[in-house]
Each structure stands twice: as structure tokens, then as C-alpha cells.
């Protein structure tokens, strides 16, 4: 996308800590994104993956830590900079969070109009382009309640992409979907990765992670405890926590572990 060509990270989240109800949910977690990076966060339930992700666009304000957009440190106490950060960082939620009262096209168009100041016609034109990119050009007039889960998630992706984010955060984008609908959403995400959209994704789709991720971060109890390429962490006999976790995941889901290659 509009990523800088040099080697400066486009986004860095450094030494994030977050307390919720007196408990330290995130403890010194960092992540750095370069153009084209696709990083996958995995880890057991309650590890703090969602919290980490939501701190990166300040839906939850980190108690400690810094966010850097390129060379610039974001002062997220400053509301201007905060809203600017959120425009740079798109987010996809597990439960879609579409605006229930708006048709697909208006879901995409709303922020274009209100944040970007586009006219209604311009915003709708852009909305149709984005919906076409996720294969939903014929569903533009339908409302969330008239769409399948997979279609809703694709509208959510179109809505996030319409804001021209420099990076996309995805929090378990397929885990609320019926199994037969997972594929259509993963295809869209894979396509984005192929086009170089930097992404941080929480997912338990390990085959997908192995195929697309440039790095896997394994989280537990608020810490990133392992970090490395899928080849490193998931190599047969690697004896990593990641490997171990994935094996248990496969056993749980009854899937067969993916062989190397």
C-alpha cells in the first residue's frame, strides 16, 4: 500500500503494559511492522492477544508504552493524533461490528463521509469499489441482518480498507464463522497479504498462519514468550511452546498437523 520504501518500521508498538481491574493483562509487549509484514499472534485464551491488538489502535489506552508511526511518536493523549492513528490502523473484529442500521454500502461509506469529508456520491463510489474488491458488489444494498457471517466479515474488511489504512489489525476474523464460510474470508485476507498490506492477525488457523505469516508471536499470560518465523517455530521437532500449543490445538480440533512444505 502506501508504505515507505526504506527499512523504517511503518508502525512500532513498544513496551506495552496494560492493567485492567488491577491486574496486569499486558506486560512489556512489543511489535514492529515493516512494509509487507504479516504477523500472527497466537496463544491460549486470556493470554492478552485482543488486549494487545486493541492497545495498538488505542481502543484501549496502554498504561505504559509508546506507539510510533514511521518516524513519529504518537501522543495518544492528544485526540487529534489519536484519531489520526486510528485512521492509519484498520481493525477487523471477531464479531464484525457492522453498523446494524446501515446497508453494506453505507457501512463502508459512513466513515469516508464523516472522517474523510467525502461527498455522499464520492463515498458511495469508493464503497462500491471496496465491496467489489471483496466480491460483494451485488450485496451493496443489503443490510447486515441480511448477510451471512462471511459476507458480513468481508463488508467489515471493505469498510476498514476504504480508509486506506497503512496497517490492518485482525482479531480472530474467522472464529465466529461457520466452517464453510471461513474460506471466503481467508481468501480475501490472503489476497491482501499478497498485495503487501501489513497485518497483525490473531488467529488459530495455523495452516493459514504458516502459509502467510512472516512472523509468529506466541503470547501467554500477557507476555510475548516466543517470536520467530513459522519455519523456525513450527519446524518438526522444534520443541517450541508454539509448536506444543499448535499440536494441542490440532488435537482439540481434530485436524491433522500440517507437514512441513
Amino acid at each position, binding site marked *: 500500500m502506501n508504505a515507505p520504501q526504506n527499512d523504517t518500521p511503518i508502525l512500532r508498538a513498544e513496551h506495552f503494559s496494560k492493567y485492567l481491574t488491577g491486574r496486569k493483562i499486558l506486560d512489556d509487549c512489543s511489535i514492529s511492522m515493516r512494509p509487507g509484514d504479516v504477523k500472527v499472534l497466537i496463544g491460549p485464551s486470556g493470554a492478552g492477544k485482543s488486549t494487545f491488538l486493541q492497545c495498538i*489502535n488505542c481502543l484501549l489506552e496502554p498504561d505504559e508504552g509508546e506507539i510510533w508511526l514511521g518516524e513519529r511518536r504518537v501522543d495518544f493523549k492528544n485526540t487529534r493524533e489519536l484519531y489520526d492513528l486510528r485512521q492509519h490502523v484498520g481493525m477487523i473484529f471477531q464479531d464484525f461490528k457492522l453498523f*446494524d442500521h446501515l446497508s453494506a454500502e453505507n457501512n463502508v461509506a459512513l*466513515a469516508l463521509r464523516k472522517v474523510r469529508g467525502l461527498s455522499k456520491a464520492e463515498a458511495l463510489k469508493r464503497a462500491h469499489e471496496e465491496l467489489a474488491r471483496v466480491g460483494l458488489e451485488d450485496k451493496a444494498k443489503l443490510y447486515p441482518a441480511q448477510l451471512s457471517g462471511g459476507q458480513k466479515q468481508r463488508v467489515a474488511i471493505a469498510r476498514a480498507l476504504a480508509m486506506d489504512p497503512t496497517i490492518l489489525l485482525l482479531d480472530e476474523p474467522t472464529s465466529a464463522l461457520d466452517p464453510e464460510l471461513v474460506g471466503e474470508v481467508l481468501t480475501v485476507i490472503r489476497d491482501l497479504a499478497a498485495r503487501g498490506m501489513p497485518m497483525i492477525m490473531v488467529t488459530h488457523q495455523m495452516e493459514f498462519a504458516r502459509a502467510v505469516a512472516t512472523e509468529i508471536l506466541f503470547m501467554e499470560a500477557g507476555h510475548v514468550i516466543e517470536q520467530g518465523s513459522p519455519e523456525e517455530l513450527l519446524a518438526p521437532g522444534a520443541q517450541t511452546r508454539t509448536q506444543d500449543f499448535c499440536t494441542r490445538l490440532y488435537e482439540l480440533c481434530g485436524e491433522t498437523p500440517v507437514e512441513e512444505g
Partner: protein
Amino acid sequence: MHILSTIIEALPYILEGTLVTIVLVAGALSLGFCLGVPMAVAQVYAPRPAAMLVGFYVWFFRGVPVLLLLFLFYYGLFGLIGLDVGTIGASCIVLGMTSAAYQSQIFRGSILSLSAGQLKAGKALGMTNGQTIIHVILPQALRLSIPGWSNEYSILLKDSAMCFALGTPEIMARTHFVASRTYEHLPLYITAGLIYFAITMAGVTMLRRLEQKARIPGYNSAGM
């Protein structure tokens, strides 16, 4: 046929009062809406002091009889601050401020019934809280509020009869005036009752139409 001719003779006079009642109700509902929406938003989203201030307002207006409020404001407060808006204006303001207390709680309930995710989604797109509340939260919350609002309409309409005590020339005052002169209490009050009944039905029917028109496609008849 004496009764009938009394009614027919009094009818234009009472119908003029009907117009006044409609103005009262429309004015009070509008004022209540304009105050009630920001009050509900403040109670849900504003910092504690503002939310508590609204809470106090609601507590006060819900805790005191409308009749007392009418006297308190019209003879008391308005005189004190030198506000002269006439009986119709005063009735409108007092009914409207009372209605605001009730309406704010209808809207607050609807806002709270929406998932917090809607606000999160707006924020994640770079919209301000204000923009998200105006363009995402309220359009949904107001739709959900129509049944409760319809109820508030019918209650307010009947409360407006109390403005009679200020001498506001609405249905009740005029009916009472004619009845006390002609001694035809029964037929006249029945007529007034029928008029109230008709206005209630008309309003409730209109609001039900609105509710259907505003229904979000894909949701069942329960609304959401």
C-alpha cells in the same frame, strides 16, 4: 334533543381547545425530545458529574406531581425571573421539561441495549465519539425507542389536561367551562373523553406506522 344541541353548540369551542391541546403536546414532546436525547447521551457517555446532574434532573421531575410543577413554575419561578410566556407557553415548557425526564430514560434504555461494539467500530474507523453517537448509536437507539415514546405520548396527552389548572384554554378547561354553565356534565365530558381517545389513537397509529417504516431490513417484527 336539548343535549345534542348543547354539544353541537359547544363543539367548535371545545375543538378550538383540541387545537390548543395538540399544540401543547406537540410542543412538550418536541422540547422533551430535544432535551431528552442529549440527557440520555450524557447519562450514558458523559463524565460522572454531568451524568449525575442529569440523574438529579430526572429524579426531581419524576418525583413531583405535574400539577405541582405547573404551579411551581408558572406562579413561582417564571414570576421570579420575569418570564411571561402566557399559559400555553408555560404549560408547554413545564410539560416538556417533565417529558424530557421520562424521554431521557426511554432513550437511555435503548442506548444501553445496543452492543458496546458499535461505538468501538466507529472509533476504530477514526470517527470521534460524537460522530459515532450521532451517526451510529442514536439512529439505532431512536428506532428502538419508538414503542416507549408512543407510550410517553399517550401519557403526556392526558397529563396536558392538568394545564387546565393554569387556565390554559385546552380541551379540559373549555369543557369544564361549558359544563359549569349548561350543567350538561355527562354528555360534555363524554365528548371531551372521545376527543382525547381519538387523538391518542391517531398518534399511536402514526407512531406504529413510523416504527414499521423505520424498521431495519432483515430484522424480525420485534424490531431488533
